[in-house]
Structure formats: C-alpha cells, structure tokens
C-alpha cells in the first residue's frame, strides 16, 4: 500500500452521468429513465488500487464500462493521463485503448472457446507490437502470471477457473497497460484459489506500477487489495476514503449496514435496530432529490429528503449524509455517539 500521492491523477472523472432510457413504446410510457451513474467524481492515483464497492444496481459496473469506453457518458468529463476521452472519436481514442485494459468476472466466457489461449493472447498482444519475437513474449507473459508454456496450446474448456483468470490477466498485460479495470476478478473462483489471483495481481502491480480499479462486492478482496474504497449506492458515491478509514470507521449508514450485513456472526438486537439496512433496492422517482437510502435507512428523518452533499469528514474521507457531516455517526460500535465530545472533536 502506498500513501504517496502524485500531482495529477492518472484517471479523473468529473460529474459523470449515464442514463439508460427504457426501450419500446410501452416501457417508455410506464417506466422512467434510470440514471445508472449519477454525477460521479473520482480520481485514481497512478500505482494505487481503488475499489468500487456496491450491490447490484449501484452502477459500479456501468462506471467501469464508461472508463474503458464500452459506454459513452451523457454528461461529465473522463480525463485519462491529461486527455479528455469523451471528446475523442474512435480513431483518436485507439492509442489510449491499449493503455486501459479490463479483466472480466467470468474467464470462461471472456475467451473464444474455439481458439487456444495462446492464439487469444497473441491477438490482443499484436495491438502493441515490439521488437521481441512473439512466441518468446507470449512465453514470458504466461510465466509472469504463473502458467507454464504448455498452457498456450490449451483451449478454455481444458483449464480450471483460476488458470483461466491468470490467462485473462496475461492477456490484459500483453499490451502494457497503465490502468487495469477489473470487474469481480475473483468472484467466480473458489475460496482457496481467490487469494492466489489477488496475490498475483498485487505482485504485478508492484513490478509494473499498474493502477487498478477493482469493481467488486467482495469486501474481503477489497480489504486485502485496496488503498482507497468508493462505496456506491444507486448511481451515487455515498462514502469514499482510505480503506482503513472506510472499513474501520464507516460514517454513511449504508456503508455501516453493508459491513453489518457481511458480518454474519456479530449480530445483536441493538445493532440490528441502529445499523441494519431494511427492505430491498428501490428505484428513485423523478423529482426525488434527497438521500436514496430513505425507506431502507434505520436513521431516516425528514431532513434526508433534502439533497445531500458529499461532505469531507477527515482528509480524503467523505460521506453523503447530513448526520455524518454533523458528526452524529462516529465509531462503528457506537451508532449514536453524540454524547462523547471527543468523538465530535475529530470531525471538525
């Protein structure tokens, strides 16, 4: 984990918004457009790992796809290494495409089943030619991800999930990227194998000074890998900060509820009342301007119907909740720690 901060982030998002309109006449009549990503600011420092955390419907995968430009944003700017990528046409973007690579959740479906692994990797590798002979470069790539050269001749069906995910990482690295966006890279793998892939990713990051954006719902992987965590709920960032701060001292009721939901062993009635997130995801109605957690949040009040700003609570640690901003939420184990003045002192 590095705490060093560059002057300029490698990737910077400002006010990014992406709306999906309902398709078909009937759907347009009955449903309204959903902002999957609704005004996101994000900055990734070179050589660090940022985790994007959220449940289904949070918009984390849409955001990842915007960054690798599988979608175009409706509003906002995405700046990669000083260049605004939304303004570029496909041809002008091509040199940048090499520098931003993606690793997918399911390695079995992200490889062509009829081609050998070697052929698939070579196809991508040719986008970034260099002087080294192709076969040597392929062998070196495979060994770098811990696969022996014989894997080049295998087809996806002949490999285990962990081996395939290593091959997926080799393919992403074959074009020497700066930023690797990973969508649930270990979620399809067995528990005893997940750590192998995470260890490999950490090692490759150190060696090549890679920047990672880790999109996942797996908080265990986040704890092991990430320098910073960004928690999303219904298209918005609700909390962000250094991993230790967000996990050790979560301030947004959603983050607290999420950590509580994962911690299946530490349940008791009092925490259940104060921390547990109720019900299931609800889509905001047009005209809703307040906190999107209203109705599920145990601490909801009238004021939550007003727009909530992402307020800075400590250097680099922000939350989108007026209670958090006023210091009403401090210390994970003390949901209403307002009586202790020392707790409030830290926040101001």
């Amino acid at each position, binding site marked *: 984990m590095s705490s060093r901060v560059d002057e300029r982030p490698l990737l910077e998002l400002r006010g990014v918004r992406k709306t999906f309109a309902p398709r078909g006449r009937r759907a347009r009549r009955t449903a309204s457009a959903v902002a999957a990503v609704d005004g996101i600011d994000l900055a990734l420092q070179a050589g660090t790992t940022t985790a994007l955390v959220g449940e289904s419907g949070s918009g984390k995968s849409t955001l990842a796809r915007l960054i690798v430009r599988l979608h175009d944003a409706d509003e906002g700017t995405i700046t990669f290494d000083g260049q605004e990528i939304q303004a570029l046409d496909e041809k002008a973007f091509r040199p940048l495409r090499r520098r931003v690579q993606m690793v997918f959740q399911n390695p079995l479906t992200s490889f062509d089943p009829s081609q050998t692994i070697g052929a698939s990797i070579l196809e991508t590798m040719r986008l970034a030619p260099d002087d080294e002979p192709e076969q040597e470069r392929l062998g070196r790539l495979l060994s770098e991800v811990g696969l022996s050269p014989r894997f080049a001749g295998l087809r996806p069906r002949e490999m*285990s999930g*962990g081996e395939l995910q290593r091959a997926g990482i080799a393919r992403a690295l074959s074009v020497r990227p700066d930023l690797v966006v990973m969508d649930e890279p270990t979620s399809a793998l067995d528990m005893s*194998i997940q750590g192998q892939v995470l260890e490999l990713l*950490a090692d490759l990051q150190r060696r090549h000074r890679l920047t990672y954006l880790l999109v996942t719902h797996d908080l265990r992987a986040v704890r092991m*890998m990430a320098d910073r965590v960004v928690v999303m709920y219904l298209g918005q960032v609700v909390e962000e900060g250094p991993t230790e701060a967000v996990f050790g001292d979560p301030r947004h009721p959603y983050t607290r509820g999420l950590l509580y939901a994962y911690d299946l062993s530490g349940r008791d009635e009092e925490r259940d009342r104060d921390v*547990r997130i109720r019900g299931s995801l609800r889509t905001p109605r047009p005209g809703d301007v307040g906190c999107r957690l209203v109705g599920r949040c145990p601490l909801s009040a009238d004021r939550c119907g007003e727009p909530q700003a992402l307020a800075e609570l400590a250097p680099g640690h922000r939350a989108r909740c007026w209670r958090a901003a006023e210091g009403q939420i401090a210390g994970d184990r003390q949901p209403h720690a307002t009586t202790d003045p020392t707790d409030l002192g830290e926040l101001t």
Partner: protein
Amino acid sequence: MSAAQTQSRSVLAGIADDPLLEISGLVVETGPARRPIELLRSIELAIPKGARVGVVGESGSGKSMTASAILGVLPNGVRARAGTIRFDGRDLMTLPEREMRRIRGGEISLVSQNAVASLNPLMTVGAQIAKVCREHTGVSKQEAWTRTVELLDALGIPEPDVRARSYPHHFSGGMAQRVAIAMALICSPQLVIADEPTTGLDATIQAQVLEVIDGSVKASGAALLLISHDLAVIRAMCDIVAVVYAGSLLEYGPADEVLNRPLSPYTQGLIRCMDPPEGEIAFIPGRIPEPGTLGAGCPFAERCDRATDACRAQQPALRQLRPDHWVSCHHE
C-alpha cells in the same frame, strides 16, 4: 440390497443415538463401468433430529452431488455404486421411486440456489405452493391456499394474499428465495436441504434471507442441511459442520470445534482464506483436483504443506480425535 449393507452404519453414527439422516460409505461415479470416474469417493454424514448441519466445500467437492444422492435425483449417467443413505429408519438408496416421490417435497425438501428458475413461470406462486401442499397432505384446496398465505406472511412477504396471486417474475431475488423457502416448508418436512440458498444475492438481502431460514426452520423443528462454499454463512447458521473436498469427507464436528480448532489442514487453510491476518493475502497453493485424477492417497495431499509419503499412499480413515469431532488426516 443385502441385510449386511442396510445395517452398515457410518462411523459418525456415534454422534447421536439415532440420527435422522445417516450416510455411510457413499460412492458415486460416472463414465463407463469399466473405467469409472469417482465423483464421490467416501462421503459420510450424520444429521441428528432438528440439527443444523453445514456442508462446506469448493467446486467439485461433491457437496451438491451429496444432496442429489439424498433426494435420489442424480443426473443422467451418474450412479451410486456403494453406500447407504438411512433416513428415518429407511435406506433411501433401495426405496422404489414411488416412495421416493412421497419423501421428496414431503419429508425432505429442497431450497436451491436459483429460486426464480426453480419456480414455474406460468403459475402464480401461491398456486404452486398450494399444489405441493395438496399433493403431500391431501387437504382441501381452500385449506391449502389458507396455509400458503399464512406461511408467506410468516416469512415476511408483505401483502401475502396479493403476492400469492403474482407470478415468479414479479419477485426480486430475495423475495423469490422466500417463496422457495415457503414451498420447502409447506409440508412440515423433517429435513430441509438448502443448497447455496443465498449465493448470488446481495449482502443486505442475504442477511435477510438467512434470518428467514433460521427463524422458519427453528419454528418448524425441521433439521437443516445447509450446503455452501461460504464459511461465514455456515458459521452463522449451523451447529455441526462437515468439510468436504474432492468427493471425500475430511472433517466433521460441532461448528465451534471445527471452525475454531480445525483439525484438517484443509479446513485450517480454508478458514485462513476466509479471514486472513491483517495485511496478508491468504490462499492454498495448487489447484483443485479434477474428478478421476486422484490416486489412492489423501485427496488434499497434493496441496498440503504437511503431506508425507504416507499421505500420498493411502487415504486416511475418519478418526474421532476429540469428542464428536472426526477428521480424515494421518497427522496428530
């Protein structure tokens, strides 16, 4: 089957005088009879009446195959070669299909991972649950419907009489899983098998569904066989844990014991993976063995840092090293 076979008891039978379900020496295989591929090599299991037993394992461990064997619904081309599955005094492996059909859904029910896929999309959920109830208990249509709505209400489905008339696609993942749980409980079974019941659900919804399973199983007095890859789920729900790996039972005992003082090196590694020390990335080296590639030794030997020649030569028998705590390992 011969009398000798029906009387063979699992070494685990010692845990309770008369377990509700007891699997002994179960071997399940596929492929040609002359060169069979063993999917389950040596599965033992005991489920005392009203207990909650968690089976934890990774892909290929045989945890779901064991459930299929209990329910007598092994996939095409897969057959049980040896072993007994004693349930409430009967050997399920020798029962005629007609009787198995009465047991499935009645005395033993299943909650599967993908609830929406397990429901009939063309029937309202209420009608499906009521149908199961009528087929197994023979109550009137009206009575079955009343029970269905009551059960949906008890499982925390809002407006149960309205929701009972909805179709499966109207339900969110968490709500659909509650419907599947209702279907599993409607006939007051003695054993509920839940196969990865919350995998694929969001964490906040997972916690709710586990609570529903917990409460409803407790209220009905049924035993629970919870199959999961997630030790955290097993830890939260079960009082007995069975650890399976590559078709063999490696460890069995009280949840407290197995999770806090694991005896098998595999269980130890798995717990470390789930809850790694601060600032560390934990894993078990090597790969999970493919079915049919295992020799005569311990299935975990290839990945175990304590493996000796003895481990590679012979699969260790289950031994009771602590009270009610069995392990298949040559060490200790």
